[in-house]
């Protein structure tokens, strides 16, 4: 199911995680590096990526983490999820980071390193390059 939660237009390279992300505690507020050893993106920075992950988990205070990384210029360019959760939705809304959800099939088809153009003004939303 596709939804536009925060609209916008942006071009970038995909960083994908099949694990959900708990923004409070596992994403560094300054560097946007993932600090959870068990996470597939451990030690990677989510800065300037098009971050693709199933959904957010954990405390709603995690929305402030998304706001912080945006203020520190280390935020992703956009986020794409399978499921809309309130923490990521409000965090992206606070920080003005485009956020959409997509169906399982399209989620499976997106891989790390792919170049995408995301445009919420068009009906296709995601344009592969």
């Amino acid at each position, binding site marked *: 199911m596709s939804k*536009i939660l925060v609209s916008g237009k942006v071009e970038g390279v995909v960083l994908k995680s099949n694990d959900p992300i708990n923004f409070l505690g596992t994403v560094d507020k300054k560097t946007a590096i993932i600090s959870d050893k068990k996470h597939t993106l451990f030690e990677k920075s989510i800065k300037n990526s098009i971050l693709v992950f199933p959904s957010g988990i954990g405390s709603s205070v995690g929305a*402030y983490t998304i*706001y912080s990384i945006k203020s520190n210029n280390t935020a992703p360019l956009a986020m794409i999820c399978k499921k809309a959760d309130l923490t990521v939705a409000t965090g992206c809304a606070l920080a003005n980071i485009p956020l959409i959800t997509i169906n399982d099939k399209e989620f499976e088809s997106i891989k790390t390193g792919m170049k995408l153009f995301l445009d919420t003004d068009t009906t296709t939303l995601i344009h592969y390059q």
Partner: protein
Amino acid sequence: MESTHKYYNCNNDNLPLELTRDEESALKGEQGETMQMAYRILVATGEATDAEKLIPIEWAHLSGVNYNTIGDAGEEFLSTISKDARVKVKTTLNPMGFDIDNVSNYKLDENFISKQLSIRNSYETMGVIPSFSCIPYEIFDIPQTGTQVAFAESNAAIHANSYDNLKTNKESAFSALASAIIGKSPYSSLRKEDTPNITIQMKVKNPNELTYGMLGFYAGKIGDTSVNISGLAKMDQRQCKAMCGGMGTSGTCAKFNFGEGDPNTEKIDFDEKEMQNVHDELNTAEKGDLITLGSPQLGLNEISDLTAKLKGRSFQKRCMVFLPRTVKQQAQKIGYITELERAGCEILADCCTCLTPLICKDDVDAVTTNSIKGAFYLKNSNGVGVNLKSLQEIVEDETR
């Protein structure tokens, strides 16, 4: 980056969120950056919760006040937006981390105190009533039946929906704040007519407030947005609050419908065995080093009752009593506070057991409480042991 919200969702079975021309203009930024951000929050929340429109609300109650929970990022955010954000409807506020009148008695560092006062200042600048209370339903007048409100505090949202004939979603700190600034909220799930598909049948005999707290905790784990509850006797205010506090802690559910509900609903018993499971999950200690009362905070009736129970008796260990400042002021006039202090109670206004920075595992191994909500956060956030007892047992066992 453009930010034009579309009137439709792609490949979406659910109805899209429709905005009026005025709302659309605010979302585009034509009414300033703060309004644009507030609308972005409501639109994102509305889409995530399948709302089809925004509706006016008359009262917002905000969470996200305690520096212990929102941290530096929250403090900075509030300080930034308070420069031009102002609330449009009556807006009240959850507890903060301490009572300024006696904070020097506790081991809190200067940084915590100054950041907390900055948060308080930001909310006051935005026009929020500094109520610092998780029981707005008890200290403010309840609007007429069916009024739409936006309550972020979970026990307050459940109380409003279940006992006060108000309508609210279990809002997040952000959707409640955005709702306060805009005066509207997404029209989703609990604001509409809902028919729970589960009925919990209360089977435990002679329940006290601890039993009702555990019933609420159990119901919150099972229910999705609302549940039917049958087999309840007449409950006092303490028991109602305990049940709402318990439910708000364990899940996303935010309404009790009283009665059997539709005959086709799934029936589940809350019996001695289920109650024991909840008890075993939260009761981790044989005894506590100190006692806390109030999560949710105590109202005037509970303070009056506590004063009567403590007549001629004194606590043999520390007992922290949490209440709203307005209740403290009323209780002072009547003489309850003097009496409670004589019995050894530490009276704390503006703060609460839940997520308190005043109890630290370096100093305390375990806490005795009659609050299921308090127990959950003491265990999981403060990291201390918890000894559950009803108020009656606390008075019998811990005072002389």
